[in-house]
């Protein structure tokens, strides 16, 4: 089982329908506008604590969700807003969780990094770097145990890719043929440390070869390329061939969190990426040059998305703070007496 060579080929546009392109465009744009709004609300003091924005990386989750089917599971790190929107969670519930309100997915008790949706098979939202990787393999374990053909997408960053538990998980996932897709979102910076300053490995996905896991590198700024790679990974897992690694090369435009001055890279580097590789602009250009949509069509879409995002912000401001007795709920799934005297 030699790992496949990374194709790194540009995605073909031939088999992509207008509807699909429009859907990717809308989904990516929703994430971007939502995150911009979250940034604003943070600046206004409505969102507290840590807030990690996904701007720039939208093609990764949108492309992979296009390869998923009902019942597939996903789990990710603290940079999780995009994943939630992409799997169909309600922007109102996500934004209200960011503001710590009753209407949030976790009733305001989780926050930006800790959101979940059983209904959409979204298992978090994890604040501990790398911890979601074995959890993702465990979700895949549960599907294999139950005998269905669902797969789990376990997303983690280039920083988490150096965590010991990732390799413990690679080993067991391949040993037990777990249907898990390890998605390394390589945005090139683990907080302020570039990949080159944290490892001498030439590529992260190739480390899977040590465990016999197949994988490939993917252009994460190209939603069609991500979707195609996602389909290969999903087919591999559904066929019972065990795990698969996708190293998706992407880029985060904003700082690691809201308080990151981003002195570790130049303004020019960010600007160049935005101008030349922006994933949303790329689809926009295909839509226009392929005559799939007019400028007016796209403007209408922009307007719709803005209103959805504005509504979510309004909801998140209006939703009340959780009732004080929520402090004491959801600690146990059954009633037990309080531990303190």
């Amino acid at each position, binding site marked *: 089982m030699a790992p496949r060579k990374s194709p790194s080929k540009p995605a073909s546009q031939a088999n992509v329908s207008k509807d699909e392109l429009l859907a990717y465009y809308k989904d990516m744009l929703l994430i971007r506008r939502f995150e911009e709004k979250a940034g604003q609300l943070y600046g206004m003091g409505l969102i507290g604590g840590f807030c990690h924005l996904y701007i720039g990386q939208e093609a990764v989750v949108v492309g992979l969700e296009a390869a998923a089917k009902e019942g597939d599971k996903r789990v990710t790190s603290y940079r999780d807003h995009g994943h939630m929107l992409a799997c169909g969670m309600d922007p109102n519930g996500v934004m209200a969780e960011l503001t710590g309100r009753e209407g949030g997915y976790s009733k305001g008790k989780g926050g930006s990094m800790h959101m979940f949706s059983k209904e959409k098979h979204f298992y978090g939202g994890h604040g501990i770097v790398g911890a979601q990787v074995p959890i993702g393999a465990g979700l895949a374990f549960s599907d294999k145990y139950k005998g269905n053909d669902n797969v789990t997408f376990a997303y983690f960053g280039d920083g988490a890719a150096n965590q010991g538990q990732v390799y413990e998980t690679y080993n067991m996932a391949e040993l037990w043929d777990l249907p898990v897709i390890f998605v390394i979102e390589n945005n090139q910076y683990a907080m302020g440390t570039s990949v080159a300053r944290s490892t001498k490995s030439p590529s992260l996905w190739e480390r899977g070869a040590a465990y016999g896991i197949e994988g490939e590198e993917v252009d994460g700024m190209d939603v069609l390329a991500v979707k195609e790679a996602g389909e290969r990974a999903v087919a591999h897992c559904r066929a019972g061939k065990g795990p698969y690694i996708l190293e998706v090369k992407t880029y985060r435009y904003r700082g690691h969190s809201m308080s990151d001055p981003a002195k570790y890279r130049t303004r020019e580097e960010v600007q160049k990426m935005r101008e030349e590789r922006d994933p949303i602009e790329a689809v926009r250009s295909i839509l226009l040059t392929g005559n799939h949509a007019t400028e007016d069509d796209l403007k209408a879409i922009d307007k719709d998305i803005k209103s959805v995002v504005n509504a979510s912000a309004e909801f998140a401001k209006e939703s009340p703070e959780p009732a004080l007795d929520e402090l004491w709920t959801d600690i146990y*799934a059954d009633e037990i007496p309080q531990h303190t005297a």
Partner: protein
Amino acid sequence: MATELLMPALSPTMEEGTLAKWLVKEGDTVSSGDIIAEIETDKATMEFEAVDEGIVGKILVAEGTEGVKVNEVIAVLVEEGESADDIAAPAPKEDTPAEADATHDSAPAAAKPAAPVEVVSKASPDFPEGTPMKTQTVREALRDAMAEEMRRDETVFLMGEEVAEYQGAYKISQGMLDEFGSKRVIDTPITEHGFAGIATGAAFGGLKPIVEFMTFNFAMQAIDHLINSAAKTLYMSGGQMGAPMVFRGPNGAAARVGAQHSQDYAAWYAMIPGLKVVMPYSAADYKGLMKTAIRDPNPVIFLENEILYGKSFEVPDLEDFTIPFGKARVWREGTDVTIVSFGIGMTYALEAADKLSEEGISAEVIDLRTLRPIDYDTVLASVMKTNRCVTVEEGWPVGSIGNHISSVIMQRAFDYLDAPVINCAGKDVPMPYAANLEKLALVTTDDVVAACKEVTYR
């Protein structure tokens, strides 16, 4: 010159074993490395190799003999030309000076020979009076509890190091691979962090994992998943999803295994909201509480004890026997002082109560059994009666369960106290290896007796 072959110690806690089979007979020549016998401990059947060469002159312990003490002479090797008839039967080992050393060397915390412990009080009955009882070791009770629950619920599975083909490092899962197959009894690589995370994910995915840690010392590598992933997710998800699962394994000191293998984690885990924490003493409690733990919809930390594994107790012979969490058991009723303990600490608590009664001090002994939730009411009612309290645990003294119990008593029964509460705990040192120092580091029956005398001003 004749060489005596002694019954070997084959594990840190072994005190005796069964001489299952001789693979040589009198008159056979053996050389170093030959397997000469099979010896059964409570954990495994081990091969016994010859160290010296010679002729088997006399076999002194017949095969099939049970309860052969470590260091007992089991056979004698003679040299060429020596006759077995020249060998006088060795004097009973008890009389030799070597035995004194052996006793000194043996584990200070090791279990007493396996006489079933009797319940002196019926104050906390977990089953109706007249229930048929059977004698079982803690080890058997644990295995039965897991197997019964696995028969009952397809989503329950066991994973851990050596749980399947090896039949359990401490033989707890013996026979389970045969019954349930490799899908449900799963050997893992030695990667606690990884498999604890995988099991937690499986619990999020709707299964009910039982994770065996070979010891809780190794769970420190995995503790992020126990606490950050398993214990907190229900709260962080606003009640949407949690981790119904059991993390279990031996906890605390075994015997002579040094600082990194001897820690008691009771107080650590008992601190964490979202976890339930169980630390039983008797086999009946191990069984009834393990079945409850597996059915519980929350992550449960189940702290076992290697020394207790081989200890026998009376266990109710019922088809489905469970014990609710948060109910202490009064093992012995008394009027002068309340001794509160749990897990192996109960050994010292009960021994101390016996000794105290000889001196006319009547001790009430309470086994907390679960540390989260804790049955405060039983403790407080007893302290209001005896007006004195001593807590007993093996873990370290700072931030201990005893500290917490003392604080609760101070807040809720201050006016009833006739003396300050004393916490008997392990000493505030990493566990030493040397036998005499280890003995000094652990809590002892004498410590408990002394504390009870102090609070009763005797």
